[in-house]
C-alpha cells in the first residue's frame, strides 16, 4: 500500500521560493499569475495494515515542521 503526503507552507508564511517562481513565470510571458506557493509531495511505500494515524504521526515527528508547514495525508 502507498500513501502520499502533501507538505505546504502554512498560509501567512512568506514563501520566497514560490515568489521567485512567480517572477520567472512573468519573465516567460505568463501574465496573470497572482501567486505561487511551493510545497513537497512525499510518497511512502508502506507495509500492509499501516494506518493513516501512523502516517500522521510520521508527519508530526519528521515529514513536516508544524511551526511553518501544514500537511495532508492521502492513503492510496
Amino acid at each position, binding site marked *: 500500500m502507498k500513501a502520499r503526503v502533501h507538505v505546504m507552507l502554512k498560509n501567512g*508564511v*512568506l514563501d*520566497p*521560493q514560490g515568489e*521567485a517562481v512567480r517572477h520567472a513565470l512573468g519573465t516567460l510571458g505568463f501574465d496573470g499569475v497572482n501567486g505561487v506557493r511551493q510545497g513537497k509531495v512525499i510518497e511512502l511505500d508502506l507495509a500492509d495494515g499501516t494506518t493513516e494515524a501512523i502516517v500522521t504521526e510520521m508527519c508530526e*515527528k*519528521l*515529514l513536516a*515542521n508544524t*511551526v*511553518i508547514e501544514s500537511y495532508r495525508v492521502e492513503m492510496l
Partner: protein
Amino acid sequence: MKAAVIVFPGSNCDRDLAEAFRKSSGIEPAMVWHKDTRLPDGLDIIGVPGGFSFGDYLRCGAIAAQSPIAREVKAFAEKGGPVLGICNGFQVLCETGLLPGVLMRNASLKFACKPTGLRVETTESLFTSQYTAGDEITVPIAHHDGNYRAEVETLDRLEAEDRVAFRYTSNPNGSDRDIAGILSANRRVLGMMPHPERAFEPAHGGTDGQKLFASLLDALAPV
C-alpha cells in the same frame, strides 16, 4: 572545560569549533559521531557545529535531529547541560525542539557569506557574560537558510524573557526582529547563525567571537 563536538555526515565546521574549544580551555574536545548512542562522561558542554548535515535533505537539520546522538544531546540539555548550536547546529536544535522557531530560506534566496555586525542583547548567560550589553561585534555568517521565524507569541516571549542573545545590526536574511541567536528557557542552550569560532584568532580577520568561549570557560571551568 570538557567539550564534545557532534559530527554528522555533512558537518563542516566541526574542527573549527573543536579548535576554539581546545584553544580556549586547553582540553582536547571529544568528537562524537552521530551514530554514537552515548556521550562521553563528564562533559561540561556540547557543541553542535555548522555544515550541511545529511545534505539538508527534507529540511535543514531535520534528519540530524532524529539521529541516535541527538536523543542524547536532548537528554543532556533537559538535565541542564549547556549546548551551543552554531549555524546548522542552530537548525538542528530547532528541529529537536530544544529551541523554538525555525530557520527558513534567506529572504534574498541567496547564500549569504560575509562578516556581519551583531549586537549583544544580553549578558545574562554563560555564553555572553564577558561581553557588555549593547556591544557591537563582527562575526561571519555563511548560510542559505538563516531566516529565523517564529509565531508572534513566541517572539514576544523570547523578548520578554530576555532570551534574544544576538541581533543583526543590518539584517542579512530576513529574520524576524533581526534575531541572530536565541537562548532556551533555562538560558543554557544557545543557537546562533553566525560563526563565533570563525572569529576566534587574528588570522581569521577578527577576534570578536573569542569572548563567547571565554564566557563559557568562566562559567564552566572557574579558576
